[in-house]
């Protein structure tokens, strides 16, 4: 059953969303340049939510995605990559995807509250949690350095 607009608004404004424990960046299964993490989000309403973070230091680009186990990605912050909305309008390299019944997660906008650079995942994470009303009981560890010339 797809998520309704009202359900999405309720999830986003739910102030009980909580992530416990530190966030540690790890290699992905391909040992690509990107690093990632996945955390369960605990909510009073019992929404089956997870937070997936990915960071590519070579570009650089960051994505924090709020994923519902029943509906897929419903909210996400992208830094370092551009976007085009279904109406053809282009959106800048810092943009947020927001779920709607009409467009699912294809509609994005440029948020005013994100000032972090795409090579600063820690600051980006702090700013992301604020608008998404996510409380993080822990800290995000800095991503380990990678050697770019090992990839290309």
């Amino acid at each position: 059953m797809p998520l309704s607009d009202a359900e999405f608004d309720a999830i986003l404004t739910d102030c009980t969303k909580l992530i416990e424990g530190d966030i540690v960046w790890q290699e992905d299964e391909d040992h690509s340049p990107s690093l990632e993490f996945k955390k369960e989000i605990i909510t009073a309403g019992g929404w089956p939510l997870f937070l997936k973070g990915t960071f590519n230091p070579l570009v650089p680009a960051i994505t924090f995605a709020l994923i519902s186990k029943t509906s897929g990605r419903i909210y996400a912050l992208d830094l370092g990559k551009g976007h085009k909305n279904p109406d053809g309008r282009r959106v800048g390299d810092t943009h947020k995807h927001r779920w709607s019944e009409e467009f699912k997660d294809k509609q994005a906008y440029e948020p005013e509250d994100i000032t972090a650079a795409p090579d600063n995942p820690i600051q980006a994470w702090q700013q992301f949690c604020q608008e998404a009303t996510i409380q993080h009981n822990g800290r995000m560890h800095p991503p380990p350095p990678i050697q770019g010339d090992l990839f290309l």
Partner: protein
Amino acid sequence: MFECSVNGDYVRVRTPFLYPDGDFIDLFLKSANQGVTTVSDLGETVRWLNSNTLSAKRSPKQAGLISDISQTHGVEFFRGMLKARSSEPTALADAVTRVSQAALRISDLIFTSRLRSVESVTDEVADFLQELYLPFERNKKLIGRSGKSWRIDFQVSAPQKSSLISVLSSGSRSAAQQITKSVVATWYDLSQYKASPEPLTFISLVDDSADVWSEEDFNLVESISDVARWSVPETLSQLLTA
């Protein structure tokens, strides 16, 4: 239109192509000695896929599709990056086109993910069993010692032996506990099938794409069945054919 700009050590090429959510597909060029230019997505396509899925690991079907797509378009899939080389300036456009098309097609693998389609993990298991050429029956009805009727997700008939598979999949911890208890009760009531002249192996297949299973859940099902994790499908294959 393709838009080029300097991006650190690379030249970024913003293609007119989009990932399924509308994000632009960007490629990156880097020139080395002897005039060879490498065109790559720097792993952005795989990163885009990983950002949209909860699965810890790609399914064998998805891995096979990536390999097939890479071969079709003559690109290399190396450490999660799509790459093509061009030693002639006149061949650069061709390399950009090939990597672009490979990135576009691979990103469409999101539609083989359960979160984007109606396919369940049980459907994925069915696909897996087909790829192994193992005959199976879905939703097998069996009567337990209590007289209760149970529906088992799969009965698999391998040359070496036959097995029953119960798939444990859940989106929440509380539901996971209930499912675990239900599966344990199922195996307990069907235990006579383990002792028959044609004994069946009981396999509990845990969908560990979500971190909802506790150590106690695993201990419970391990006490009465063989356990495999869906993130390591090779284990299931071994249990079915050992």
